[in-house]
């Protein structure tokens, strides 16, 4: 089993990791390439130091990584801007595009189920005087093209819709949205943090102008990301930061060679293994769902067909979410997005899909990845089934059975 050590639970010295949507471990092949960019005997020099050989060597590694990231999404390397992660990419794309065009257009369209990096950027733009329309998905987490058509205005500058939802794995079909935006001269941004390397992406065919990526969701390092910025048609942005003019002036700052090289290698491996790994994860996801369905009343949160292979979000009615998470502590799973899990609130993504607070709170996200095995899945099924049954049997019955009917239960 792919177990990780957990120093906090000495009695549970290992946990089955099923939180790949939160982050992934760095692939050893990636770590090896990164280590070769750090020390004196390696490519540590500043990639902007064009005047000497070590600097040019580092630059070559950075450009090689840029090619690899571009190759995964059918972009040109000069359309890739390095950032610190998908959050920064989302900020740069949305705020950058909106502010650049602020004198002509002041309306943005996004959805209720976006990542906080998109939603909070939109909130900030509202404070700056922009209008934002938030599309509400159907109960499967899907946005219809018609909804978008109805929301677009003469002064819409940008549409931002995520490719794969981080909590439910629901996939939005981008091509028709992209075509609509392109036809209307509206910029189209996509948060692809959860889809890159998991399902095929073609930014040209999908008519995407801006796309955000993160390295650490794809077995690369944390702290590295990229933004695809279309050159044809030319997509123009205002930068968020000012400095030495790196990355076409859109994202100044000394390039982190080791992070970038790690991201490049991670994306190269992802492209190479995408088809096979997608099928493998899909099979394991189906096995998990099939196994959990022996529990009465469980429901999948998400779309029956439009979904990414590695994410399964399940609602377990009749068990309290915090108790379920604690009962399943031999597993590393989450009740939604790691970015919101400290708040203790029910998932706003599931709420937007029409789930009640209580059902949303009784939901768990299992996210599978490169090091998940069938043995892990079978263990998860066995443990989850046992614990849900245990917690349900311990709960007060909402309707008393005959032999308890004599007891007057108040409250």
């Amino acid at each position, binding site marked *: 089993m792919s177990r990780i050590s957990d120093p906090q639970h000495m009695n549970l010295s290992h946990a089955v990791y099923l939180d790949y949507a939160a982050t992934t471990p760095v692939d050893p092949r990636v770590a090896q390439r990164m280590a070769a960019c750090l020390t004196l005997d390696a490519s540590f020099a500043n990639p902007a130091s064009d005047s000497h050989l070590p600097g040019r060597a580092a630059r070559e590694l950075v450009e090689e990584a840029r090619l690899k990231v571009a190759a995964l999404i059918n972009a040109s390397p000069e359309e890739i801007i390095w950032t610190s992660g998908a959050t920064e990419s989302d900020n740069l794309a949305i705020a950058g595009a909106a502010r650049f065009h602020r004198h002509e257009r002041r309306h943005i369209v996004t959805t209720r189920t976006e990542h906080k990096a998109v939603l909070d950027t939109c909130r900030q733009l509202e404070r700056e005087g922009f209008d934002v329309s938030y599309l509400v998905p159907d109960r499967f987490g899907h946005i219809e093209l018609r909804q978008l058509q109805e929301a677009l205005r003469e002064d819409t500058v940008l549409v931002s819709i995520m490719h794969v939802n981080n909590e439910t794995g629901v996939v939005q079909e981008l091509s028709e949205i992209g075509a609509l935006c392109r036809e209307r001269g509206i910029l189209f941004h996509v948060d692809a943090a959860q889809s890159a390397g998991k399902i095929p992406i073609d930014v040209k065919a999908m008519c995407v102008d801006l796309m955000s990526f993160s390295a650490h969701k794809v077995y690369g390092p944390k702290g590295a990301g990229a933004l695809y910025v279309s050159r044809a048609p030319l997509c123009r942005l205002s930068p968020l930061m000012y400095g030495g003019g790196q990355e076409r002036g859109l994202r100044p700052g000394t390039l982190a060679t080791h992070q970038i090289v790690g991201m490049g290698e991670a994306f190269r491996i992802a492209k190479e293994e995408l088809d096979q790994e997608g099928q493998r994860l899909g099979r394991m996801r189906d096995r998990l769902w099939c196994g959990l369905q022996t529990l009465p009343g469980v429901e999948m949160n998400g779309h029956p067909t439009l979904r990414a292979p590695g994410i399964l979000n399940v609602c377990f009615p009749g068990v*309290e979410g915090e108790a379920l998470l*604690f009962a399943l502590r031999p597993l590393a799973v989450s009740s939604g997005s790691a970015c919101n899990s400290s708040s203790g609130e029910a998932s706003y993504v599931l709420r937007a899909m029409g789930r009640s607070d209580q059902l949303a709170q009784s939901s768990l996200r299992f996210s599978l990845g490169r090091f998940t095995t069938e043995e892990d899945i079978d263990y998860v099924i066995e443990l989850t089934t046992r614990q849900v049954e245990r917690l349900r049997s311990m*709960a*007060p019955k909402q309707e008393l059975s005959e032999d308890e009917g004599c007891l007057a239960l108040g409250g």
Partner: protein
Amino acid sequence: MRYSSQVERYFDDPPNAGVLTGPAERLAAGRAGDVRHGAQVEFHILVDEGLIREARFRAYGCPCTIAAAARTAELLEGLTVEAAEEFDPHELAAELELPADKLTRVLVVEDAIRAALADWRSRGS
């Protein structure tokens, strides 16, 4: 979220979970809380000559709620009804090392005990 070892123990292997069967005139039960608000606790007691001979609980809620209900059911056994009236939620919270923001859960436990004892008294025994 971190839980104390006591909460962990009572949550994982709660004594006294379930309900009671027996002669109806010796049984009483009470429930408090609301599943929609995240916690519901129910106690069943078997009383004989003023003494709580057996106690069982059922609970829906966070680990602290379940542990608090389990520990309480265990404590109730062998107490007189009068002694059970003296239940102190703060003492239980201290024993289980519950965080301050979980104190409301112990109050649900307290309300459930009071409901069970009131049910017993209403039977006029």
